[in-house]
Each structure stands twice: as C-alpha cells, then as structure tokens.
C-alpha cells in the first residue's frame, strides 16, 4: 500500500468513521481511499470545499480541544512551494501553528508500517488527552508503497466524551468554545491545557537509537531522512567509521534527554533534514553545548541521498571545515 492509503486504512481500523478532507498532492490518495472505504464501514466521507472548511467540519464533528488526528504530508514551501517531499513544516507542527499557548502531539514515522501503528496510537492518544495529534509525513512517505500488517487496536481504555455536543438530553447543556474574554478565565484555561502538555512530555516521548553505543558521530534525523541515513550508516560502518543515529519518533514532545545521555567518545552530532535546519534548534537544546551540532539539509523538495550523507559525515571525520 502507499503511505497515504495505509494511513487511511489504519485510521479506519483505529475506529475513524468520519473524514472531512480536501485533495492536494502529495496526499490525494488519502481522501480517495476514504471515499471508497468509509461507506463500506458505515462511515461518512465528505469532500470539503477547502482545507479551511475541512478542519472546521472536523471541529463541528468533535469540538474544541479536539481529539482529532491530522495527517500532514509535507511538501516544499514556503507558500504554495512545490509538490515534492520536504520537512518544511517542522516549526509549524512542533512549535504551534496558530496563536495561543498550545502544542500538538506530533508523530514522525519513517516507514509505512510505522505510519500505520502510529496512526492507530494517534487516535488513542487524541482521545486520552483530548488534544489534536499530528502524523507528520512527507511526500515520499505518502507516495511510497511498502507491505504493511494491520495489528489489533490497543484496547486502551478511553475517557468518556462527556463534553461532546449531542443535544442536551438528560444532562446540563454543553458549550464548546475558545473565547474567554476575561483574562483570568483564559489564563486558567491555558494552564489546564498546559497541564495536559506537561503530562504528554512526561509520558509520550518516543525515540529510536541506532548504533549509538560506540558512535563518534551521531546523525539526527526523522521520517524519510532517517531511513536514508540508515543506509548511509551501513555504508559508513563498512568503511570503518563509527556512526550512529538518534531518530525522534515524537518530534513533540522532543526526546531531549536521549541527547543528554549520549556521551563518551562522541565527537559531533550531524542533523540531516529536508529543510534548512528546523530541528537543529531542538537538538542543540538537548545537547546543551556538550558537543558541536552540525547540519546538512536539502530543501525545496530535493531529497538528500545516502551518498550525500556519507560524504558529509566523512568530511566531519576528517575535520575538513
């Protein structure tokens, strides 16, 4: 299946029955798949007139402090940019895309199988925290095909949705809003959101470390770039270079503590991204000045090759400026 189709199927298997979307390359296969599959399971598919309308339909279906899952298949920006793969929305996804004090929980899968399992987890965690969860992929991830296995849902016990608007039969009325004209009330609201965010930071960090035990240079990458880096690391190891990788699986909350733990002979970190270095800031926060943090990136829809990563890493080993 393509990543787009696999994410769609994972969503359905996680219990998603309502989909509001708008086709745009490189994620159009997702609404296409949903339009075919949702009616089969008694769900609702609606093609909205715009992305703006789609997210508001979702809002209507669920309500503010939305327990919803948003899939962002990134393409090159800024603005309309292009349609080729990119990781240009890291800041937007992890630092808050709108105004206000809030964060999304953001998963960054690097294979389609992982996209499937993270999408299913995303539905659970969205409900658990009553907070939007994002699955952050890129054009490659959406278009690529890989075999996938669909595993049973987690069976996580989810809180009852007492806040939902269903008609106030037999209960006090519910109100879903984000307007708090009284600053004291808004502060209280924000502190409550922050409490959930802190809970996510404490409990939901996921990270993979790959050959870091003896590594002298640790590559930091997520998503598609991480799997390209794995190939580069194999090549580099064959040539005798001690290289490993830290791969954040959640980019928010970011696995800062993993960086603190890596020490020893470590010479350098090399952050590789399909952007001009949006994750570098988080890596530097994690490393906290204990080692140099270098960066290599391609942007505008250009995918870095493993050759480029190999060359760049070898250059760092040789100490060539």
């Amino acid at each position, binding site marked *: 299946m393509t990543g787009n189709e696999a994410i769609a199927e994972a969503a359905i298997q996680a219990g998603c029955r309502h989909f509001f979307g708008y086709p745009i390359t490189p994620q159009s296969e997702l609404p296409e798949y949903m339009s075919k599959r949702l009616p089969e399971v008694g769900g609702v598919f609606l093609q909205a007139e715009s992305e703006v309308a789609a997210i508001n339909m*979702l809002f*209507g*279906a669920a309500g503010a402090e939305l327990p919803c899952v948003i899939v962002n298949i990134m393409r090159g920006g800024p603005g309309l940019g292009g349609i080729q793969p990119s990781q240009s929305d890291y800041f937007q996804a992890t630092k808050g895309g709108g105004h206000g004090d809030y964060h999304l929980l953001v998963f960054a899968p690097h294979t389609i199988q992982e996209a499937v399992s993270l999408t299913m987890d995303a539905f659970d965690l969205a409900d658990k925290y009553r907070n939007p969860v994002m699955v952050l992929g890129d054009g490659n991830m959406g278009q690529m095909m890989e075999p996938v296995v669909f595993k049973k849902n987690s069976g996580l016990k989810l809180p009852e949705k007492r806040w939902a608007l269903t008609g106030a039969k037999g209960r006090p009325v519910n109100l879903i809003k984000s307007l708090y004209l009284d600053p004291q009330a808004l502060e209280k609201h924000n502190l409550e959101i922050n409490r959930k965010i802190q809970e996510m930071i404490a409990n939901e960090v996921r990270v993979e470390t790959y050959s870091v035990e003896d590594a002298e240079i640790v590559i930091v990458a997520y998503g598609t770039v991480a799997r390209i880096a794995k190939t580069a690391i194999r090549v580099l190891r064959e040539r005798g270079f001690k290289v490993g990788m830290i791969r954040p699986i959640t980019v928010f909350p970011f696995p800062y503590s993993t960086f603190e733990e890596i020490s020893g002979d470590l010479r350098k970190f090399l952050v590789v991204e399909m952007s001009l270095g949006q994750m570098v800031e988080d890596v530097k926060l994690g490393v906290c000045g204990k080692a140099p943090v270098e960066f290599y990136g391609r942007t505008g829809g250009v995918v870095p090759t493993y050759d480029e990563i190999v060359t760049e890493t070898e250059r760092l080993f040789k100490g060539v400026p």
Partner: protein
Amino acid sequence: MQVEQVKVFTRPKTLRPVVTHYCPGCGHGIVARLIAEIIDEFGIAEKTVGVAPVGCSVLLYNYLDIDMFEAAHGRAPAVATGCKRVHPELAVFTYQGDGDFASIGTAEAVHAAARGELITTIFINNAIYGMTGGQMAPTTLLGQKTSTSPQGRNSKVAGFPIRMAELLATLEGAKYIARTAVHDPKNVIQTKKSIRRAFETQLKGLGYSMVEILSQCPIGWHMTPPESTKWVQEKMMQYYPLGEFKISKEV
C-alpha cells in the same frame, strides 16, 4: 366578579434569564428570543445544537439553553456540517452576522447551501460590523457612512452590497430562502414564521434553509432606536426586498 388571570406572555424556556450584551434597540435580542420560541414550540431543545461564530452573534451561547459551538470567523456552516453529518438526528443551526456569512465565510455559506446540508442558517444583516465598532460590511449600502467608508460607501472603491438571499436561492441544494425584518411587530411575526419554516425544511430533510433578517444597529449607525427602525423600513428594504425566495411545497 371573578377575574381570570391568563398568562399571555412569558419567557421561553430555552431563553436563559440573563441580561444580554446587546446594545439598546438592537435586533439581535429579538431574533434570539424568536429562535428560543421556535425551539420550544417544536420541543427540540434536547436535540438542537447551535453554532455561533465571531461577531455580535458569538455570545448567543450565553442566552440559549442548548448545546452550542463557538466557531472560528466565517466557518459556522462547516462546523454545522460536521456536526449534522455525524449526528443526523439533531437539529443544527448557525447564527451568523453579515461580516461572517457574507464576507469572510462566503465560501462555506455557498457550499453548505450547494450541498443541500440539512442545517439552518439565521443570518443577521445589519449592514455594518457591529462588534468591532461600526466598520463597513459587505452588506453596507451605497452611500452609507461607516468608520471605514467615512465618505459613504462608493461602488467604484468598495463595490456593491451583496444580496445573500437572492444569491443562495439560485442553488439547487437550498430549499428555503427568505428575507425578513424585525423593526416592527408585523415583521417580527413574519420573521418568526420564516424561522419556523426554515427549521421545518431541515426537520423534514428537504435541504438547506436560510433566513436573512434585516436588523437595526442604532449604535453602529449612530441613530436613536426609532430612527434606526425607520432606516430599515426606508433604506434597507429598498435594496433588500423582503419575501420568500424559495420554499418547498412540503412546508
């Protein structure tokens, strides 16, 4: 001689006993009451969800004792669409001003109607941006002075006022479209009738319904309340004719 006391006027149950934020002479409060009366008369308070977006309309959730959404500016029909599609058993309505429905949210308005969403829109047209302090609205009349058209609206600069009722009536999915006013008792009664027909159109599953209500905004217009009702009658109704532009025979 025995005098029998008959209660002829009372607060509808769905209207909360609170003081509204509406300015003196404003039409919003009348419409809020009419909606509450209709909800009570249909007996659907426990299966109705309202959507109020940005503008003077937003605080409707403080006045109606039903489940309510606050929506982002212009997006109420999309929010209502999502709600209705997931809960087809509910009665879902949006309560929108002219800035919301006829300017920032025109795309959502047109497409909800074109899809024939089973929702009802109550659209308050007062020819001005009330909440933000009297700026030009898409419905501001030609020559009308506002804080952003200080010389009066000029069509060469700001184009022409939009007639939403006529516009939406051209769409197949729209099944009840009317324009009414609330500046005098006769028109208030007609407005209530139209709101009833709009809800009926939804409850019978016929299609999209919308009532555009010409409403006075004395503060925004810099008039006394009596002057403002006269202005509705003499100026607004000239450009915005009242009537039912579309109605199903089942209603």
